[in-house]
């Protein structure tokens, strides 16, 4: 390799555009630090894409904003809510107010207890923590019979941070988890929170 060639290779700044023969007719006269430019047209498909998106945008604007033919954001929401209401099966969301004792129901209740993260306020074993009361002792703030439990689970005690579950659980599921909670009575888990409320009969 000659010194000159070697230098050229070591110094890419000296490299200028290689022009293929068929490109000569397209070559523009300017040269920027060795960079040449060809006079190819912009690819046709790209231009069509540009025109199409402009056309699409114009139609979109006229449809939604100028003539308000499409729903506004607020109307879309109302439509969605109305459709949901119409589709909702009017199901019997009523159960007999009685504690369940069969194992299947209690297991289901236990599952719900953990799925709905009841433990984050009432502890893994229902022992209670800094937020929620102990569910395993005989003391209750809002009543300790199945009826009171279902009520608290259904509508919550918002002021005290107990969430209402009527938007998340069916009546049957509420009954199951309430029954499970009742089944925790007297289990005496470790680290149980001090009693709160009144002692149940």
């Amino acid at each position: 390799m000659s010194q000159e060639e070697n230098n050229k290779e070591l110094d890419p700044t000296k490299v200028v555009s290689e022009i293929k023969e068929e490109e000569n007719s397209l070559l523009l006269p300017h040269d920027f630090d060795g960079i040449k430019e060809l006079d190819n047209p912009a690819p046709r498909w790209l231009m069509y894409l540009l025109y199409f998106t402009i056309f699409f945008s114009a139609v979109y604007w006229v449809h939604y904003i100028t003539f308000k033919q499409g729903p506004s954001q607020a109307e879309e929401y109302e439509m969605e809510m109305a459709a949901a209401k119409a589709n909702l099966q009017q199901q019997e969301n009523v159960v007999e107010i009685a504690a369940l004792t069969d194992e299947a129901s209690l297991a289901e209740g236990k599952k719900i207890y953990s799925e709905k993260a009841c433990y984050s306020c009432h502890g893994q074993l229902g022992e209670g923590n800094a937020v929620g009361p102990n569910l395993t002792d005989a003391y209750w703030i809002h009543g300790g019979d199945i009826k009171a439990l279902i009520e608290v689970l259904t509508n919550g005690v918002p002021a005290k941070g107990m969430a209402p579950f009527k938007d998340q659980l069916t009546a049957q599921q509420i009954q199951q988890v309430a029954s499970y909670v009742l089944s925790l009575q007297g289990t005496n888990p470790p680290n149980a929170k001090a009693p709160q409320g009144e002692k149940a009969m």
Partner: protein
Amino acid sequence: MQTEKFFYDNKIVKCFAYATIFWGIIGMVVGLLIAIQLAFPFFNFSTDFLTYGRIRPIHTNAVIFAFVGNAIFTGVYYSMQRLLKTRMFSDLLGRIHFWGWQLIIVLAAVTLALGFTISKEYAELEWPIDILIALVWIVFGINLFGTIVVRRVQHMYVAIWFYIASWVAVTVLHVVNSIELPISFLKSYPVYAGVQDAMVQWWYGHNAVAFFLTTPFLGLMYYFLPKAAGRPVYSYKLSIIHFWTLIFIYIWSGPHHLLYQALPDWAQTIGVIFSVMLIAPSWGGMINGLLTLRGVWDKVRETPMLKFMAVAVTAYGMSTFEGPMLSIKTINSLTHFTDWIIAHVHIGGMGWNGFLTFSMLYWLIPVLFRTKLYSNRLANIHFWLGTLGIVFYAIPLYWAAITQGLMWKEFTPEGFLRYPNFMETLVQILPMYVTRILGGVLYLSGVVLMVINLIKTIKQGSFVAEEEASAPALEKAAKKRILGETIHGWLERKPALFSFWVAVALLIGSIISIVPLFAVKTNIPTISSVKPYTPLELQGRDIYVREGCYTCHSQQVRPFRSETERYGEYSKAGEFVYDHPFQWGSRRTGPDLARTGVVGGKMYKTAAWHFNHMLSPQQMNPQSIMPPYPWLIVNKLDIASTPRKIKAMTTLGVPYPDGYADLAIEDLMKQAQTISEDLKSNGIEVAPDREIIALIAYMHRLGKDISELNADSTASQATLVTPEILTDEASLAKGAEVYKTNCIACHADKGQGNAVGPNLTDNFWIHGGSNDAIFKSLHDGIPAKGMQAWKDLLTKEQLQQVFSFTLTLKGTQVAGGREPQGTEEKQ
């Protein structure tokens, strides 16, 4: 014509190149750390300056402004001199620019870690640094335009068009978005509020992507790609078309960051359509780059520099197709607030900006040091590590995004949210967060290989600080167009006029999309019940801003059934008029917080819950990835700053009463005392002057105004429905029926009350025993005490019936009833 000799200044180029590498490593290491934190919250180390909310902005700022910023300057200072055949205008300005920029980066990292932030994404820095940025940017501008003035080449090459557009746009964006009212050396409030602040911010944020991450890099591509490939640029015409359409259209697209949010429909539509129109102009750059490589693909295969370049340009094409797709409202409704956006920006950031920077460095360092790259093999390994890194980063996040987005929206046949507990949707995607870490590790290790390779290259070469060059002096050209000259050809030799038209192209979209939000009042309908924050809430809000809560929590409920069911009433433009700055957020790593203050709402949590949760989220929920904030419980609130803050807010137009600043501390202490006592009643002893108290006050305020609005508006409806007293047997029987299904749980079968609800049969009433008062309690409920608003659940007839039935219970004095509560109403 006389040939002039001169020297290119390579030293400044070398400085910027080294800074690029240094900050690149720092920025990516911080990125890796926050990725680890999102999977394993332990790595927040319970330390304020290492916590996610504080260092996520350090990552974004470091990679954008430090890594990519220095890369831009490296390429600009190198290519400008060669393209214009001149030394840079001023060595001194170059040096001021270099050291000024590095100083800004250091100041940014320190202040962000310490919690000094405006909280507007990619514009978080406080006002003194904003001013410094503006000054250094102007220094850069003088150097840039000065160099153009002293050029020896008549026409400006396309790369320079892009540099000019970038400089002009960033100047306007930075200045307009950073107008703040300082209240102390490192604390200020943006002058804009709520919707306006959001709009200005995302006009800025989106165009920071456009004019900092995109157009300067297109300029670099137009220089380094044809240079390294040794091929002519495919189409000069395409350069012209895509340059002007790109800069004109880009500037409008900001509102696509705010789709389905509290922004007027017309503004959102601008965001949608201009994003869609952006596809072809963006692709113009990719196509021109890829077609320039026509005929040398064998060279691409062998040259690492070109390989990186080809992937960079392809990644650019991918993310500029993805961007418009994400701006289509239907797609956006699924992907927004999810990890899709994070994946999208990393295709752009790691692929386009990262790879193009590596490509440039692999070419430039050997050139500057007059040698060959130390090892092509190492560079090839870097290429594959980097590519795999991007794949392992992006694919898990796309997966996570679709999974979580769909889970948020799923309903059961009974009409309940399938996953009402936000945590369920997060737990599902945590494995993807772990995989993403692997992607980051691969990418970063590639960069480490590059550093080794470049150091070896530098060692074997010898640096040429002053590179000799020669060119003929610039001939004076005609002012007017000469015969046969195209308009654009003429513009290319008239830099001032060219810059003027660039500014015009940029300002049209800016003005049309932003000004109406300030000038036309109906764009942000006023809500009379929306009141300024109390002093304590304002202080709490500043803590929320300081800790970067917005990096994980949005405050924007979109008008979807799945969101109103999960969070409550959707957000309205008028709710945010006192929010300096807005806190809508852009990613929901945690649940939305817009309605946490609505008692009885779905997001309400008690003070004790917030206290325990901030202290240790994992104790409340072992699966939580939220960092703990124990210092909020220890730190004393900066109460003394309160009057200054109130005064600043008043200056910004928040309607506090005259002279309220002087009373603010007293009010603050009163409210703090109440919260402290509330906590005490739950067994938590914390002094009222701690930061946690202010934060709880803010949490309990969020979204409340509009729920009070609802109470107000229904109250006016209630006066329309006269509480008519029905006395016929049939109606009372029906009322008894309604009572039996709905009321006995709390008020017992005969109205005697139980542990939950009061006795209705005595003459004592908590909320008034007049007919109107009883009807109001029934109608609107007393949510704080657990009494339902029955207007939502009963028909008007049923309401009348159960109301009438309740009146028949009055005074029946059922035996064994609950003890009297409230005040006695004389019959």
